[in-house]
């Protein structure tokens, strides 16, 4: 898999529909990798650290349950972070470019 990155990164090049699209791709792929990494970490920790996860922080609240709830919370955090970015940055740029022709 190969994704071409725009040259001259760092310079204030004018935004094009293409560069905005590329940036969206990078964000989408990055967040997906984060999500999958967190999930595999969760599964592997269950497979390899059973004893540690059975420690109870307070009666009833085991580390396993905390980690499980944290995984779901992390999924939600990523979801809302993405939405916040898309609304504030991506959509604004696409809208501007679409109006200005290109």
């Amino acid at each position, binding site marked *: *898999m190969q994704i071409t990155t725009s040259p001259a990164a760092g310079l204030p090049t004018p935004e094009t*529909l293409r560069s905005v*699209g590329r940036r969206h791709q990078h964000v989408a*792929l990055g967040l997906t990798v984060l*999500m999958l990494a967190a999930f595999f970490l969760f599964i592997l920790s269950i497979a390899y650290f059973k004893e540690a996860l059975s420690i109870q922080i*307070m009666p*009833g609240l085991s580390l396993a349950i905390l980690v499980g709830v944290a995984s779901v919370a992390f*999924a939600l955090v990523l979801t809302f972070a993405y939405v916040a970015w898309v609304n504030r940055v991506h959509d604004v740029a696409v809208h501007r470019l679409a109006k200005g022709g290109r």
Partner: protein
Amino acid sequence: MESTFAGGRANAVSIAFFIAFLVSTLAITWWASRRTRTAEQFFAAGRSIGAFQNGIALAGDFVAAAGFLGISGLVSLVGFDGLIYAIGGVMGWPVMLFLFGEPLRNLGKYSFGDVLAYRLASPRIRIITGITTLGITICYLVMQMVGAGDLIHLLFGMNYDVAIWIIGGFMLVYVIFGGMLATTWVQIIKAVLMSFAAVAMTVMALSYFGFNPVNLLASAGAQHGAAVLSPGRLISNPLDAVSVALALALGVASLPHVLMRFFTVPDGRAARRSLVYATTIISVFLMLTFILGFAAMQLVGGTAIRAMDKGGNMAIPLLAEKLGGVSFLGFVSAVSFATILAVVSGLLITGATAVAHDLYGTVLRKGRSTQRETLLVARISTVALALVAIVLGLVLKGQNVAFLVGLATAVAAAANFPAIFLAIYWKRYTAAGAVCGMLTGLAASLLFIYFSPTIQVDVLKHATAPLTMRNPALVCVPLSFLVSVVVSLMTQHQNDHQRYEEIEERILLGVREA
């Protein structure tokens, strides 16, 4: 309390609730039928579904009876282990949002086959997307039918065969007359009712524990030992666990009946927003089923739950009766029935779309079929698929069909996911690469499952199986990616890059500018 469970036979309240549900959904179908005259209206509800409504419907598709009754039931019997794979299902939703939400809506018309056909400029790719869609949909339908027959027998004491015919008949009516519009609203009504039931039960259950879930967990830990609060024997083979996780995270994002809902909203933005609603609802719902599972463990008890059904499916109905008496049990039972109806209807219309739009309209008639013709074929295939589902449901009574879900998710992850992903994100992807990659994913998953303990030991009752792993995703997903990439690189065409630039623009701007 265990011996006087009012479920297992019809009670007046459950029948009243259920009839009310059927009457209102039939009214909706009648209303929808007057708005279902074109192919766009039949397959995509005329793009009239709002983002929030679609979010509820998506969540409803996902949280089927297996989610509501199955997961809580499993938690009530084994504790924490019941949750592990449920969390995996949730993880698929953000992935779908990040990768597919907007691009798919902006590139496609009614199905993900449109996306591949447009991106690769190859109408014939739909033969394969049509086959995987039909395969996945029929697996799911059959699994739902068989599960539903058993469940309804347990809940209402109704004869298995009668239950199958009722479900088959109603799903047929919803889809054939009301198309996607009726199917979506049936799903929304059911999802709202189910959420109400789950929230009400959670509040009532937590009232026994000072409205603090930790007290509930502590009481479970004190009574059954700390083991119920921590991982147990579910994950014994880490490779298999990672494979299941991969299948869930990628497969859920590529299930055709879920993807089809992207096309019912007005634009890519709405598709994205509906995924955010769906992810939120599903996450909250998962937390509720978790609490309800432990509540059933404490308030009903594993012995009573197992006595009704070994798999734990009756934990929620038993808990409902304990918390709210016979009338609440009636409500929950009716909602469970409604859930099955709503989910099978969504599956049925997805299968009909694959036949009428992808296979007939675009491949066989090469896009020359008229609206009337497409709609007629859609309705005929709806009847045919419904009959297949009913007959298989009746034939497979009492059979172990649990492997069908794993198979369907694995095929979605290994055949559909690489194809959709590469179509959107890789500019060198070619039609030949897509065909070979998808066929490899499909064939490899089928072969793998056949030689795994899932079929060899569980179904065929052999002592051992050639493979030790049960889930194919860890092998088949990378294999499908590899074949797609290698074949694509071997079959480059001059204008592929240009084509991709056009696609990139349409992903961002939608159809009008393309």
